[in-house]
């Protein structure tokens, strides 16, 4: 997707990756409004660039991560995730959706971000490793622990 940047390109990227990036930012910051602010900062910076990055998706997730980490350093109150809704709950599955959000809150941050990138960012573990700038084995290990923990907490939903 490298090429001359247009406003429509940025809007397309926002439509395509906005929800996953919002989920990622919310799970990092524990605050949806703060995550939206971070998201807007990232895309407004993109608008000021002459060209899109060669690989926009990892770039966007990395940019959201860096800005979220900066925001967390500046505000210690963030990151509880309590009462924050970030999943769409289909009709008849509202309780199940809330349960997933609750279980996600129980995970350590480093496991939670791997789950969000893998499930809602639709990335391979290798791509997650690139975004987080850590070895793929570490990603796999965190993901394994996260799934086991989630399975235990979700009780009967997946049976």
């Amino acid at each position, binding site marked *: 997707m490298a090429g001359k940047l*247009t406003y429509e390109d940025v809007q397309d990227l926002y439509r395509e990756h906005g929800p996953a990036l919002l989920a990622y930012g919310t799970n990092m910051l524990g605050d949806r409004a703060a995550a939206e602010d971070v*998201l807007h900062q990232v*895309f407004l910076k993109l608008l*000021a660039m002459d060209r899109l990055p060669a690989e926009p998706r990892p770039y966007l997730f990395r940019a959201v991560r860096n800005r979220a980490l900066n925001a967390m350093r500046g505000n210690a109150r963030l990151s509880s995730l309590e009462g924050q809704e970030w999943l*769409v*709950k289909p009709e008849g599955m509202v309780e*199940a959706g809330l349960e997933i959000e609750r279980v996600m809150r129980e995970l350590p941050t480093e496991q939670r971000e791997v789950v969000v990138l893998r499930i809602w960012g639709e990335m391979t573990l290798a791509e997650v490793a690139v975004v987080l700038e850590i070895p793929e084995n570490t990603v*796999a290990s965190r993901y394994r622990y996260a799934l086991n923990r*989630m399975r235990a907490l979700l009780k009967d939903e*997946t049976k």
Partner: protein
Amino acid sequence: MNFDREDEKLEVYLRQFSAQTPRPLPQGRKPLKVRIAALAAIAALILLAIGVIALREAQNSSRRVVLVTTRVEPQPAAAEVSMIRLSRFAQQDPDSLGAHLDSLSPRLLPDVRSGKGVLHHLARE
């Protein structure tokens, strides 16, 4: 990492729930071409406004010249009753000063003998 069936089942279950959509992206900076076009349009409007103002100023100044011209036109009768002229006339021909003033007055004063105004009534008295 090899996913077992339980992992895949959990992934499928979690993916049933999509992430919520963020609020719309603010407009932010427009593309360079749009900004240049907007600046050019503003500059054109400013030039147009300056042109219109300059044109109006030119028209007004020509009107002012006409007004000045009409103002400097002398009133013949009024000029004749100026203090300098009357003094000169009195020195040159004092006997006919009264007759001269009588001849000038109908040209300078309103005709109180005709009409129905207050001056008409006062003149009759």
